[in-house]
């Protein structure tokens, strides 16, 4: 009997030992033999490679530091482990530990942004610009989806303050001549607003952008085509930023819909300037991008320093200073402006006033996410 127990104990010891060693040795071997990748599409960044071996690096401790970065970036089954951790946090009751809430019905919702006291500064930057500008200035501020989709948030989620910021922007703008604030509070308040955002991405959908565009046209007295006038095509399998940040990998992908006004898109010529390189294209929709996981770059090829859209339907020239929310709005705006110049100040280093002086724009439009206005360090207009 005693011997029997002892034997059992031995078997258990052997199994535990074997599994432990198998796990760490397999990890080690995979590290050595698995091909290393340079770029992580989920994280949108380049990964660390094997560090440089030199006496100086080793002595200063830089080698060790870089080597650990290399290990961290090249971990086998990386997404699997991050995903396990995300779900484990969820089980522990810590929804949102990775910055994104797993909401109801598969909605991944970014936690409210930390207002890092940038809002007042950016507000002043924007209103000063609007006040001093000789051109008409329009501002569109897009709320985060969490501020709207309250029914989809988990219990115990933090408060969203987007509409308080929007209210403040509205108040400041109403006193400025020649300036227009497109207040999205009303147009975004209906039940249909869930179609205005992606479940797996923080951006608005073309539906959302269209709702904002319609409101803009209403305020401006422009005629906006009705939804039925667009060729709408949906593409499945879109995993956006909310998905890749949080790694809730069991979430179903979104469909991404393109609203194409073929009368405009057929006339359009898009010029993308990145550094000294410029590339041209004959559509605002970059359909090869639909083969990637993050399909949002289908709109105007994603983030670029400067993008010019020329349709020549009229002679109005719009300067569009923006973040990525503008990418799916711009195709609608091309129905009203024969020429649109999009500038992304996260990359553009030139002075905006000089740009306005040197090219003859008729109007300026600013499009940011509310979180961008409240946190960005790149908004310098004056």
């Amino acid at each position, binding site marked *: 009997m005693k011997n029997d127990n002892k034997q059992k104990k031995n078997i258990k010891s052997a199994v535990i030992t074997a599994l*432990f060693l198998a796990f760490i040795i397999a990890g080690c071997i995979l590290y050595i033999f698995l091909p290393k990748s340079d770029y992580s599409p989920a994280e949108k960044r380049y990964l660390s490679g094997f560090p440089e071996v030199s006496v100086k690096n080793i002595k200063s401790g830089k080698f*060790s530091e870089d080597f650990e970065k290399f290990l961290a970036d090249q971990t086998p089954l990386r997404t699997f482990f991050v995903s396990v951790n995300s779900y484990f946090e969820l089980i522990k009751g810590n929804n949102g530990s990775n910055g994104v809430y797993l909401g109801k019905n598969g909605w991944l919702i970014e936690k409210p942004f930390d207002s890092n006291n940038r809002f007042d500064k950016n507000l002043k930057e924007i209103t000063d610009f609007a006040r001093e500008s000789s051109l008409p200035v329009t501002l569109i501020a897009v709320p985060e989806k969490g501020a709207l989709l309250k029914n989809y948030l988990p219990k115990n989620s933090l408060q969203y303050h987007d509409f308080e910021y929007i209210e403040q922007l509205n108040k400041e703008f109403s006193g400025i001549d020649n300036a227009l604030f497109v207040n999205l509070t009303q147009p975004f308040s209906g039940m249909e607003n869930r179609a205005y955002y992606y479940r797996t991405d923080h951006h608005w959908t073309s539906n959302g952008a269209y709702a904002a565009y319609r409101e803009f046209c209403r305020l401006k007295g422009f005629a906006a085509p009705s939804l039925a006038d667009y060729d709408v095509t949906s593409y499945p399998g879109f995993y956006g930023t909310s998905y890749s940040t949080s790694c809730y990998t069991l979430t179903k992908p979104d469909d991404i819909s393109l609203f194409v006004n073929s009368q405009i898109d057929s006339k359009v010529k898009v010029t993308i300037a990145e550094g000294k390189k410029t590339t041209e294209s004959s559509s605002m929709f970059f359909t090869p991008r639909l083969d990637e996981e993050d399909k949002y770059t289908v709109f105007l090829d994603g983030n670029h320093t400067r993008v010019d859209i020329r349709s020549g339907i009229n002679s109005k020239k719009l300067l569009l200073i923006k973040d990525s929310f503008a990418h799916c709005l711009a195709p609608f705006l091309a129905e009203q402006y024969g020429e649109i110049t999009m500038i992304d100040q996260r990359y553009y280093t030139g002075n905006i006033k000089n740009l306005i002086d040197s090219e003859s724009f008729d109007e300026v439009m600013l499009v940011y996410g509310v979180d*961008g206005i409240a946190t960005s360090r790149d908004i310098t207009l004056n």
Partner: protein
Amino acid sequence: MVFSSLMFMFVFLPVVLTVYYILPKKYRNIFLLIADLFFYGWGEPVLVSLMFFSIAVNYFAGLLIEKNPSKKKTVLIISVVIDLGLLAFFKYAGFITDNLNIILPFAHIPAIIVPLPIGISFYTFQIMSYTIDVYREDTRAQHSIIDFGTYVSLFPQLIAGPIVKYRDVASQLKDRHENIDLFAKGVRLFLLGLGKKVLLANPMGLMWDSLREASQPGSLGSFMGLLAFSLQIYFDFSGYSDMARGLGNMLGFEFLINFNYPYISESVMEFWRRWHISLGTWFREYVYIPLGGNRKGKTRTVINLLIVWMLTGLWHGASWNFLLWGLYFGIILVIEKLFLLKALEKLPKVFRHIYALIFIILGWMLFYFSDDVGGFAALGSFTVSLFSGGKSSPEVLNTIANYLPLTIAGIIASTPLIRSLYDRLKDKKYFAPLEIAAAAAVIILCTASLVSAEYNPFLYFKF
């Protein structure tokens, strides 16, 4: 290098274990020494030479003491002065000069900024236990510098203890019996410690950070924060000791237990018999008893206790709060010794637990607020927030709610409840697969947590 890192778990440990067990026994110590130096040098490539120096000094001191009994006192004093001198220079020089400059405003002693070598407090105490024991003839001198070096730099306990006394492992250095049961015991202990560190201590630390930095923590938030810190420091430190003991087992060593459920203590004295046991024994054996212990009358006992506890406090760090923290426990222990323990015995058990926990937890407050994190000013405002009865903001309540399941799990895990359950079930037939599954879950979840900490979606594209 820390144990809870990808580098340790998937590079260092598998390579070391594989090579160690492939090598014949006689080469294992020298291989361990090389591995130890690599382990230490990974984070401290230059300061590894300092450890070499300490090893050499004490190795030769031990030999000299054994050879020339007549001069043994001189040799001991020289070696102790060098050991403590290095510790003083690297750990306390900045603290001493800062304070001298305050006392002597015209002296303008230039600030001495030296990097603190990791683990210096631990290995200095280990190395001194050797030389003192040789002097006292409690152990024989080690003639092999490789074995001696292996003892001092043994990677499992090198950077965070336990403080292993030489005589406790002297025979194991020469002859140890690695076997699969011991190895499996080591794996269990290592995973237990890893789980404590990664799955409990780290999130408790996040909870403490978030509550401490909250703009309106309120009394509840401050209290829960302090509770979280109490759990964090216990799981962090005892987890590290468990990992060290487990790794020792994997290499055939057996180290003494270092933490024995300190939070179930019924007095502060009991707490210190259960917390960081190897440090307590060290001070007892090499400071308190040589000072005369309790054999020289009440007054001397009190003085001895206060000296030992101030030193214990200072050992934890070069900052006034640590000295005060030590003194705080010294005073409580004196009061307990004089009359409180007797009085407490008449109370129901539950009151003794509450009494002990209150003073332990308040002690952590003193412990936490070192000069690096705001010192006494920060301690003051935290104390105000803790006792003011202020309301907590919704964000703070949210944090508390999110971490509540884990806090409860932490409280349960700091008692022997799970251990006794394990002891009752471990020989049951159905338990083996459960245990293996639990071990697998711990290692996968810990790896997931370590990998996640390094997962940095680059959010420039976000806005």
